[in-house]
């Protein structure tokens, strides 16, 4: 019978006390594991590996909001930009790829965000060396849609499914009549793409109400580009000119009396808006130059998609994580003290048992090692239980966090930092076991046997 078996038998003999102390360690470790894993998930979600664009261009406002809305779809868009601005960006010699993004609606069922974009979006790696894999056909008809893996799974949608858009987000009460057809399923990426529905931008603009009323669109565009406002006559002439070219009409009358299902005019570019623009630039320096140029203006901003998230992680999430880690470490420490008290208190009652082992030939170092092993069993056993509980909690909480926070959580996520827990627990176990171990070491055999 080896020392570990003897120690294990002793631990089992004091079943209730042992269980309670091990559980207290387990709870501390569980919390610590959860903090580590959740922070790791946030870090992975918001780090530079999750996006393959140099700049996100959007209206002036909070850079963080622009990134959260464009990349992670967990914040409302700031405002919109004229389509002409997107075309200007596309023509900029420093830009190699410009992808317009239009947002604001959600799916009628399940409230998944709708993103209008171009088919080119899917031909570009969504993250460095990670390409979209699509099960389905090309995304080219105006009312074609691709859906993320999570959208497909939760709604049980497949190629051929028809879907409608709820206007203005989850709180919106208007469901557009136009139907999009799922022509492709995006394979899981572990990113926000999984819970997004992508529709063809062309179709997005053809949805009733998505094209801005002409007079408003003209005013807005002139204001955006710093052009002088038109008087009434000039405005009327401009509207007439656009209508003649594109057959566009003014939507000032709203939805009433309008045949939504038949939308036979072409949307004039001036009526189109984009929520943001994803840019790949020729060089990182070109991206920085463009970013600083945009900063000088007062209508739009270019944001490196990494920096606001890193700032968020460093200034808010990081300190919160550290605080939580300190708190959970305190819990583990208190649990450790509990184990110490439990073992130490048991020593008085166990003096005779120790003396018996010594009388049978166990050396002082052997009984010391047995007590130490008991401490290690309780700490490491509690730690393993905590590890399982922590990951179990993450597994159970993953879908809830996804729904509540909009962040994709891998239920099987594991953080390498967790590996540090066990050497630390081992060290704690040794420290805890030393004093009771010394008591065992110093036990007077004859006196304890006769007591």
């Amino acid at each position, binding site marked *: 019978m080896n020392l570990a078996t003897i120690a294990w038998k002793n631990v089992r*003999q004091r079943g209730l006390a042992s269980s309670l102390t091990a559980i207290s360690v387990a709870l501390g470790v569980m919390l610590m594991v959860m903090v580590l894993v959740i922070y790791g998930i946030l870090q992975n979600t918001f780090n530079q590996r999750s996006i393959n664009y140099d700049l996100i261009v959007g209206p002036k406002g909070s850079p963080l909001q622009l990134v959260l809305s464009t990349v992670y779809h967990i914040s409302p868009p700031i405002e919109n930009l004229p389509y002409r601005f997107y075309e200007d960006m596309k023509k900029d010699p420093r830009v190699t790829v410009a992808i317009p993004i239009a947002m604001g609606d959600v799916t009628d069922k399940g409230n998944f965000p709708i993103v209008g974009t171009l088919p080119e979006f899917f031909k570009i790696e969504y993250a460095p060396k990670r390409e979209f894999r699509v099960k389905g056909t090309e995304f080219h008809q105006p009312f074609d849609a691709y859906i993320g893996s999570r959208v497909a799974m939760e709604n049980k949608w497949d190629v051929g499914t028809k879907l409608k858009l709820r206007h203005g987000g989850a709180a919106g009460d208007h469901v557009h009549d136009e139907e999009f057809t799922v022509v492709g399923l995006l394979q899981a990426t572990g990113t926000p793409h999984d819970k997004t529905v992508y529709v063809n931008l062309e179709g997005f603009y053809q949805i009733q109400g998505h094209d801005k009323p002409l007079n408003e669109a003209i005013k807005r565009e002139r204001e955006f580009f710093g052009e002088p406002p038109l008087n009434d006559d000039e405005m009327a002439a401009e509207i007439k000119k656009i209508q003649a070219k594109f057959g566009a009409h003014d939507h000032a009358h709203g939805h009433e009396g309008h045949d939504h299902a038949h939308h036979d005019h072409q949307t004039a570019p001036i009526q189109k808006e984009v929520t943001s623009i994803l840019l790949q630039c020729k060089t990182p320096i070109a991206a920085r130059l463009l970013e600083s140029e945009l900063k000088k203006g007062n209508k739009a901003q270019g944001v490196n998609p990494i920096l606001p998230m890193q700032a968020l992680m460093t200034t808010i999430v990081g300190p919160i994580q550290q605080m939580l880690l300190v708190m959970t470490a305190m819990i583990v420490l208190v649990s450790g003290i509990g184990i110490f008290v439990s073992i130490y208190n048991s020593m008085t009652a166990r003096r005779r048992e120790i003396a018996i082992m*010594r009388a049978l030939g*166990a050396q*002082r170092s052997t009984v010391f090692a047995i007590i130490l092993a008991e401490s290690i069993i309780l700490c490491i056993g509690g730690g393993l239980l905590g590890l399982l509980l922590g990951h179990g909690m993450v597994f159970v909480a993953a879908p809830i966090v996804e729904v509540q926070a909009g962040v994709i959580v891998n239920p099987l996520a594991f953080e390498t930092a967790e590996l540090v827990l066990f050497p630390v627990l081992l060290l704690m176990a040794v420290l805890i076991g030393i004093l009771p171990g010394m008591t065992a070491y110093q036990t007077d055999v004859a006196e304890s046997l*006769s007591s």
Partner: protein
Amino acid sequence: MSLELRNVTKTYREPGGGRLPVLNIANFTLAAGEQVVLVGSSGGGKTTLLNIIAGITTPDEGQVRIDGTDLSQLPEAARDRFRAERLGYVFQTFNLLPAFTALENVLLGMSFSGKRPDRARAIQLLDQVGLKHRLYHKPSQMSVGEQQRTSVARALVNTPRLLLADEPTANVDAANQQNILDLLRSSCKEHNVSLLLVTHASEVAGQFNRVEKLADFNKPVRDGGA
């Protein structure tokens, strides 16, 4: 294994600060394979003597030689090893470990001797003491007599060279008393093991050729006494 005690004294500290003499043995010997019964009054130092022979307690003075090795001169770790490897001890109060089954208690005796636990031998010994049906019972699930028989099996499991037995039959019924005595004696005879058995039962002592009264050779003297 031969045993020889020369000028062994042992005192205990008294609450008042003085020393209480317990042992003062000028000479006591036990030949290899010899079986001796030691009788004495309660508090006469029998258990202290066995503890000194077992190396659990050290004498204040004197020599305890076992096969020529002076046990009292050995470092503690060496005494522990010696006890584990060569001595068997049947305690008056059984001293079984409550967390372990009868079989595990017997195997534990082997574990500290550095030997590979021989499960078959442990079961065989428990069978010999009539406890085959109690292998997986813990001490709390056994009668007093069964616990005593388990402690006998544990003392014999390492095939010791010297077996010390402190009232081994005190808590068992007459039938089992004889079984235990027979087992102890036959095991010792078979392996040429020396046996030193302490008892106050005349029916036990009567079965041995050599019976020693502790008072005959133990003459504790208070400081300043004659």
